[in-house]
């Protein structure tokens, strides 16, 4: 019996037993954990900033920013001591915030000092570790309360997501007023959340396609003057000074800055041809980039300045092409879906190109990779047009004209197509151009 058992046991144990001596004694087990659900924005509890009315403005601007950030979600902190924090420098009662499912808590103070300047500081606490994750202080003119709130929002956004922020930016657009037949179009500028609207032109000329310089407070746009052909203009948003970019015999449109802000690329019409040209702003030297019988327009530089994406009908229909920034041929088509592609814009991150796609009466704003693959439509409807990228490459603004008696309005969409927010402009608005983070 003993023998039997041994043999039997041995047989059954052979594999296991032999392995037993080799099994690691206390090795950690390694498990694959696949994400359990769809994307969840990270919850941040925004407590009331301590201070005077500036503090209240900062709190509400930050809250509003987070609501439109897609990555973050503001949690109402008023259930915890009314949202008031006695001492914003100390770690708050994290248990209470944990119960709200907040992952971070933002505290801060903002008040005017004796010299009239506004001093603002904030602290971001991580609820799971109980430690401070970020904190900073800003001093600025009292008139810049909203800008400080945007800076706080950007700092928190960057700390939590690792991405660059986009709150402290401005958007240039064409403000439209009046009846449809007598539309008055003025160049306007506003904060990305719709505040601080300012008009840059009087409305005598019809202005279209404004574009922000990536490096300076300059905007280039096209204006249809009553006298002659449309011309490209350069305007400084701070001073309001404006000048014509050049005298060109033909029409010129779709001007855009190069990443270093030193050149403008645009399309010029000569007879039946429309080709791309660049112009050095300082020397006013122009260089011709394309030379085809087709219409090449809507050029846009890549963020490293080495390539240009543009729209051309050289293949028979409007499609998107990419070529070297020095032109000279070798343009490669990258759009291949059904329909017509136009207004391509290169993401500041360099990874995607946004465009307008028209297909069977429907207009969509979409993105594709720089080689044309991975095409995704983010929003569709009647007459969505003219995408422009936020400086962090995560959001787009575009305008939508639903037709009828109304007028166009500007909307903001995230590049994942998850959410769409209207941009609150005073009236009808079109042709948005998103500027860089202000320094």
């Amino acid at each position: 019996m003993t023998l039997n058992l041994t043999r039997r046991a041995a047989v059954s144990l052979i594999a296991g037993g032999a392995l037993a001596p080799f099994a690691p004694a206390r090795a950690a087990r390694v498990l694959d954990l696949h994400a359990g659900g769809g994307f969840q924005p990270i919850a941040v509890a925004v407590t009331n900033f301590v201070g005077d009315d500036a503090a209240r403005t900062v709190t509400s601007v930050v809250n509003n920013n987070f609501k439109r950030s897609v990555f973050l979600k503001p949690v109402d902190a008023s259930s915890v001591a009314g949202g008031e924090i006695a001492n914003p420098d100390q770690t708050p009662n994290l248990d209470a915030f944990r119960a709200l499912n907040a992952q971070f808590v933002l505290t801060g103070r903002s008040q005017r000092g004796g010299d009239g300047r506004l001093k603002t500081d904030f602290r971001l606490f991580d609820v799971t570790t109980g430690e401070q994750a970020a904190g900073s202080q800003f001093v600025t003119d009292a008139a810049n309360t909203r800008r400080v709130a945007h800076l706080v929002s950007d700092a928190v956004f960057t700390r939590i997501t690792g991405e660059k922020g986009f709150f402290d930016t401005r958007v240039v657009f064409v403000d439209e007023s009046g009846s449809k037949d007598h539309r008055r179009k003025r160049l306007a500028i506003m904060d990305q959340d719709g505040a601080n609207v300012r008009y840059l032109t009087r409305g005598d000329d019809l202005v279209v396609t404004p574009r922000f310089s990536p490096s300076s407070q300059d905007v280039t746009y096209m204006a249809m003057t009553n006298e002659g052909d449309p011309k490209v203009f350069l305007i400084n948003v701070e001073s309001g000074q404006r000048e014509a970019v050049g005298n060109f015999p033909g029409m010129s449109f779709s001007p855009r800055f190069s990443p270093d802000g030193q050149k403008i690329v645009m399309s010029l019409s000569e007879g039946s041809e429309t080709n791309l040209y660049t112009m050095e702003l300082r020397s006013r030297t122009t260089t011709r980039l394309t030379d085809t019988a087709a219409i090449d327009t809507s050029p846009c530089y890549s963020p490293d300045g080495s390539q240009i994406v543009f729209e051309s009908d050289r293949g028979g229909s409007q499609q998107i092409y990419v070529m070297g920034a020095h032109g000279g041929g070798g343009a490669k088509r990258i759009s291949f879906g059904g329909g017509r592609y136009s207004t391509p814009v290169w993401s500041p991150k360099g990874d995607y190109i946004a465009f307008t796609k028209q297909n069977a009466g429907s207009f969509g704003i979409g993105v594709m990779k720089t080689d044309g693959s991975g095409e995704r439509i983010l929003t569709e409807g009647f007459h969505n047009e003219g995408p422009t990228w936020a400086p962090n490459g995560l959001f787009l603004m575009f305008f939508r004209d639903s037709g009828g008696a109304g007028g166009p309005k500007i909307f903001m969409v995230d590049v994942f197509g998850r959410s769409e927010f209207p941009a609150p402009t005073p009236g009808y608005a079109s042709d948005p151009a998103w500027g860089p983070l202000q320094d």
Partner: protein
Amino acid sequence: MNFPRTKPGFPISAAAHAGLLAATLIAFAQAPKFAETPETVPIEVITDQQLNQIMKGEKTAHAVKAAQRAEKVAEQVETHPHPPQAEAKRDVPTPPPSFKRTAEPSDDDAPEKPVKEAPTPPKRMAALTPEPPTRPAPPPKAVPAPPVKPQAKAAPDPDEDKPDDAEVVKPKPPVKPKLEKALKEPPTPPKPSEKPKETPRLKTDEVAKLLQQKKLENKAAKADDGDESDAEKSEKPSKTAESKTAKPKSGDETAPKSKFSAANIANLLSHEAPQQRASSGRERTQLASLGAPTATAAKMSPSLQGRIDSYTVEHYRKCWATTLSMNAMTYVPRVEFRLSRAGALEGEPRLLNPSTNPIEKARGEQALAAVRRCSPMQIPAEFTSYYDYWRVTELDMKEDM
């Protein structure tokens, strides 16, 4: 075609070629087939020492304390995992659990059916899992055992098929062993007659008293039982403690058993005389073989490992959401963390592959925060004995499939 006789080259060559070709074809057609390769069977070669080690278990393992009864000593029926009948000796209806559960040889072989009465069986089973290798049958039984337990007393039949109670017994490790002794009687399934005996159950306070005594005895007597006794003692003395299934390990058991028996018997005799739970001589030995539950994970069954793993993954998945990323996120944060026995986080989780890229860094932080948020983790009873396996975990935190 005319082939001039003076130039016979071509026809001769053609004929030769044709002949060669024909010969070749015929030869190949007749070639013997290759012998069929015999099916390969994986063989592991182990040495004598390894086998002994396996059978014997670890000296330092927390051996299951065999329920031991003085009477049983006489009847060592060891190495018979099966014949429950052998143990029918329960002469004393004893409840007192004070019997030490040392690896009594006598109890060894008799797979106690005590499991039946043990209310807690499910746990036990988990604890004893290491043993399964020796008893192929038992493990399956263990499962049915618990449900049967309640009726065990009533129906002897269920007991009968529990020769493998061994597994059932497994669960018993904690306290039960002591109680088992008393309960042993009842459990002996094979004997319907025994049933009546099973009825006497210890009162709780008696049991407690006995346990206390047992504790002392056990401590003294069983040096090697080590933790087991503590564990047993700590368990609530429940009357229904299941008997440990003595897994009869032939041969090997004897050695350790004898070591115990001398001391145990002496202890038992000195204390317990009146209350023997005469279990039928089957000793509930916790076969200390194969090591205790705290031995390495290799002793766990793969299905149990799988259950623990998927339980863990499902738990932490609640706090881990996919990221928003236009490019497929290739960075997979690997988080290492340790848990206490109760499932609480011990120390801080650690990111094993941090990155300097700001977006990946933020993702790594989210991974750590996810582990913190989802801690502590409730540990189901059946996993508690396998603490060593799930104590340290590394999670590869990936996107959606």
